[in-house]
């Protein structure tokens, strides 16, 4: 073990929070309580928890469509009200984006959350500007974008890496390679199944990380963030992981693959075993942590359900800054 046990338990709690959040959300979605579309981060908790652990409220991260978890973690860690992420997903007035954004557009710059953008990969361009502002103001901050393997096909992916490299911008690329973009296997959609092969040409450190091992993920994010804060320019991390959610229409991946990742590579199972093996905590103790976290998340769901809907007329507010336009 490279991590001290307190940190590992904290990270376990964070990962559990993500999973409980997603499972609770999925349940409510199926009941019809959550409008729109739902992509969950189940299976990718270690990646998100490792990033959340190292990013400060004064840093910036752009979450992807499976990032309810890191959004909730940041919200809870820095402002103590993770329930406002849940409320946003329910389209409530108390949500972080006042119900205007939902799952794909939850933001709060006060906690470093610069918001998702449902056009995949598009904020790979935006992240450059945040990083440029840090650089021009000589602030030792990190601008991170969390992106799926699917975004590698976008022009912005290449424009972004190139520009970050020539300007030495403090950008952390956190690429979540979960093997597929909807149905497209990563090796079929891109010139290499290892995205670092493509990123390396842009001349920044490119590291492959086991995205399901919280210890390794935590350590690699630490290294990347230290490097960036030191003014050395951008850094590229490729987290190899796997998402539990298949297609909306169901599972399409081979049964053995599904079994392998869920049974043998579940980041929570792996971390749980490590905790029990390396500390005085028993299985019962860990069960208690899980139950605590789950109860907290259920409280968030209740909060979201009880929150008021937005005033309908608010739909025309904030189109322009300082101007109201006749409608």
């Amino acid at each position, binding site marked *: 073990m490279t991590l001290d046990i307190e940190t590992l338990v904290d990270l376990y709690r964070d990962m559990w929070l993500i999973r409980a959040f997603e499972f609770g959300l999925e349940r409510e979605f199926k009941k019809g309580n959550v409008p729109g579309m739902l992509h969950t981060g189940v299976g990718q908790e270690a990646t998100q928890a490792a990033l959340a652990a190292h990013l400060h409220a004064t840093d910036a991260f752009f979450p992807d469509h499976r990032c309810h978890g890191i959004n909730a973690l940041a919200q809870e860690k820095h402002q103590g009200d993770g329930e406002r992420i849940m409320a946003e997903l329910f389209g409530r007035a108390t949500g*972080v*984006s*006042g*119900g*205007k*954004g939902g799952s794909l*557009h939850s*933001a*709060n*710059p006060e906690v470093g959350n*610069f*918001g998702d*953008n449902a*056009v995949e990969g*598009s*904020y*790979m*361009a*935006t*992240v*450059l*500007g*945040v*990083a*440029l*502002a*840090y650089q*021009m103001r000589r602030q030792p901050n990190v*601008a991170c974008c969390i992106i799926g393997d699917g975004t590698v096909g976008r*022009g*912005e992916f290449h*424009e*972004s890496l*190139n*520009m970050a490299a*020539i300007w030495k911008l403090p950008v952390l690329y956190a690429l979540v390679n979960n093997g597929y973009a909807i149905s497209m296997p990563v090796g079929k959609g891109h010139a290499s199944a290892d995205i670092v092969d493509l990123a390396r040409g842009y001349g920044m450190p490119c590291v492959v990380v086991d995205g399901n091992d919280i210890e390794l993920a935590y350590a690699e994010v630490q290294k990347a963030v230290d490097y960036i804060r030191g003014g050395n320019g951008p850094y590229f991390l490729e987290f190899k992981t796997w998402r539990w959610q298949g297609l909306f229409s169901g599972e399409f991946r081979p049964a053995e693959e599904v079994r392998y990742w869920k049974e043998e590579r579940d980041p929570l199972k792996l971390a749980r075993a490590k905790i029990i093996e390396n500390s005085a905590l028993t299985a019962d103790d860990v069960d208690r942590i899980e139950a605590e976290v789950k109860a907290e998340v259920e409280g968030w769901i209740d909060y979201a359900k009880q929150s008021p809907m937005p005033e309908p007329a608010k739909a025309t*507010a*904030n*189109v*322009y*800054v*300082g*101007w109201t*336009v006749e409608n």
Partner: protein
Amino acid sequence: MTQSPARTRTFVQALTEALDLALERDPNVYMLGEDIGEMGGDFGVTRGLWAKYGETRVRDTPLSEAAIIGTAVGSAMMGMRPVAEIMFADFLGECYDQLVNNAAKMHYMFDGQFKAPIVVRTACGGGFGGGPHHSQSVEGWFLNVPGLVIVAPATPADAKGLLLASIENDNPILFLEHKALYRIKGDVPEGYYTTPLRQARIAREGKDVTVVATMKMVHEALAAAAELEKEGINVEVIDLRTILPYDAETVLASVRKTGRAVVANEAPRTGGLASELSAVIGEACFRDLKAPVERVTGLDTPIPFSLVLEKYILPGKEQVVEGIRRVMK
């Protein structure tokens, strides 16, 4: 708007003055774009600014239009005031998503938590044999984008005042510079001043017919008005200046007065600014109108290269004269 003594300046010089003043005044203002640094931009608008302010604030970029706008937006979310240059408006397709889905929605979709005060300067318009990819009038591509502002000056004085107002403004602004206007000269007040956005200018007063025009078409409309004056037709010309959200009040007041309207815009006809204004005038002034509103626009074709072909499809003074004659019948 404090007006100091005016001097004669070209449209380009007026723009350069504005950028210089903005960079000098606010450390958050910076510029980025292709070849805008030492070279001074394709049309010379940023000439001298790289030497004066350095490469950090006058930044050359690769051919990465999406990254240019993305960088502008991200830095604007942090409180910077970027002025981006997209060399030709035709290339806005390369960063369309950044403008439409990011810049224009940044304030709205997170319920006011972010602002994206960017200015995107770009050279538009035809008439010089630029062909299909260096000549287009793109305002119609963006009219249907709430949250975006489109500013389009017609004179050197407005080029300066509107650019300074755009840089001061908290919204994302597409700032259109018609290439045919770059070399025109006019009186330009000295020093810092702003020209209000969302306020059309009455370029010429008249009582018989209103022509609402933008950019180069303002000058075509003024030439048409001078010609028709000889026949006793008294034309009012309105320079819209802000295309989105536009100043309906000034337009409608003028049409109520004259009872006739011609809308002159270089872009293709279908679904464009001329159609929009025609609809608004028709809805609001139906009972004041003595004739249906006329649209004077480009034809619904791409822009061909050969000057003869290009002239055939783009509107000019003659088309404005014909349009006015039709509503005067």
